[in-house]
């Protein structure tokens, strides 16, 4: 691989640093970064400092954006961040919106939903930036993103590979499935057995405890967190953090209408779901009523 390394610039707007920190957890962080020339990064030592960044004169092939955007009023060193972003977005060959804030608006959008958004999307709606920059933008929503979602994209770009995207510019490899896919609780989902509490090994959190996994796009149960586990595996509901509608409220409670989940699994017609549910609930499967591990005391 003798091709020239791409220049990588990581630019933050209003952010909690969550995606920056998540990426630091990548077990092969420096190996991945070695494929790039790191121009600027908010917490890693780089060739240029923030003053150089603010000058707008740095080169940039891959621009990683983190945080929510506002056309006016978010300043860094006296410079409007949005102007800075546009400056580097012009130069970049590829733009990666890392996290739900920079993709759809996310948590920070809640402060002022009318003026704060993601870079190319405001929720699911296209922003003014879409027309100009969407063709080179890859959306990586998540709160935060999984470090390996970003490394997948970076390595594909560094090798000049095309990344198939969906209509919201998310890589299909990562977001073509739901968080439900691969969840260890799927047997309980199939037989409609609720969990009896958070953190238990048994039961599904979809029916009462707010799990959004069946209608949230993401690969949290395919590419495990810390190479070990996921929210739904350990018994916490999926909060739907990759979705344009994130964040919702009452995250630990399933909204139901007379006991029927108000939101259906992705793409599943309600009539089909209810038919299957009625039949599944008619049977009591002894194994699913029991604890997986019986402790002595």
């Amino acid at each position: 691989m003798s091709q020239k390394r791409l220049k990588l610039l990581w630019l933050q707007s209003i952010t909690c640093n969550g995606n920056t920190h998540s990426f630091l957890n990548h077990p092969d962080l420096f190996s991945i970064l070695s494929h790039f020339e790191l121009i600027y990064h908010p917490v890693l030592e780089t060739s240029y400092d923030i003053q150089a960044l603010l000058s707008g004169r740095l080169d940039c092939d891959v621009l990683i954006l983190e945080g929510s955007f506002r056309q006016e009023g978010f300043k860094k060193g006296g410079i409007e961040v949005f102007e800075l972003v546009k400056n580097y977005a012009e130069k970049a060959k590829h733009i990666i919106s890392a996290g739900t804030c920079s993709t759809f608006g996310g948590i920070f959008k809640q402060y002022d939903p009318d003026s704060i958004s993601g870079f190319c999307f405001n929720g699911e709606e296209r922003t003014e930036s879409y027309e100009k920059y969407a063709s080179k933008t890859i959306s990586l929503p998540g709160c935060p993103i999984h470090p390996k979602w970003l490394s997948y994209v970076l390595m594909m770009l560094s090798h000049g590979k095309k990344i198939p995207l969906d209509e919201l510019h998310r890589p299909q490899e990562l977001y073509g499935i739901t968080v439900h896919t691969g969840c260890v609780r799927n047997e309980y989902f199939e037989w409609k057995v609720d969990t009896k509490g958070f953190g238990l090994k048994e039961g599904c959190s979809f029916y009462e405890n707010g799990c959004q996994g069946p209608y949230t796009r993401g690969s949290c149960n395919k590419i495990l967190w810390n190479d070990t586990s996921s929210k739904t595996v350990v018994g916490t509901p999926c909060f739907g953090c990759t979705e344009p509608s994130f964040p919702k409220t009452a995250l630990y409670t399933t909204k139901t209408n007379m006991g029927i989940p108000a939101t259906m699994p992705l793409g599943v017609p309600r009539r089909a779901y209810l038919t299957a549910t009625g039949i599944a609930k008619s049977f009591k499967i002894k194994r699913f009523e029991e604890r997986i591990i019986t402790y002595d005391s």
Partner: protein
Amino acid sequence: MKIAEKKARKRESIILTALQLFSTKGFHKTTIPDIADKLHMSVGNLYNYFSSKDMLAKEIIKFTSEVLGNEIKTVNMMDISSEEKIRKIVEIYFGMASEKPEMIEYFLRVYLSHREVFADGCEGMTCVSGFITEIMIFFDDGVSKEELRDQDFFSAFGLFMGYLGGMVFLKGEEILPRELDEYVDDISRNIYYALKA
């Protein structure tokens, strides 16, 4: 007519005939030869369609549930309020009880009264899912439109269907002084008041 289509029609005619006999003569008093005789077919041929009387009984409840479910589905698809839907469902239920009494009678007097026949193969809602699913959709729509109060499904279901079933049962016992359709107004209103948000 293709053979498969002919068989399907024959199958349905067996179901309808058995439904009528079970509902009027009683499940245990009706035999497979009775059903075959009424259809002018041999007992052996009838067994080609249903391997036992119990199996036939289960297919009948699925059939009636689908018929009633399809009627309610039509109502669910209408762009009308939950109050109006309640009235239409009551009309459908009472209409069926008057015009096809065997359908409702079978549910009340065979399905609910001979649970041992349905224990294996019709567990829980398995054989009545066509009907139950549409009732679920009706409740779900009503609550999401904030027209019906959010509550436990079975509390609402029992109130609605228990009420209608009870009235039809009273009619069957010839206790009701008036025809069922004369009760539609009051009963629809009572159900709506009990379920509304």
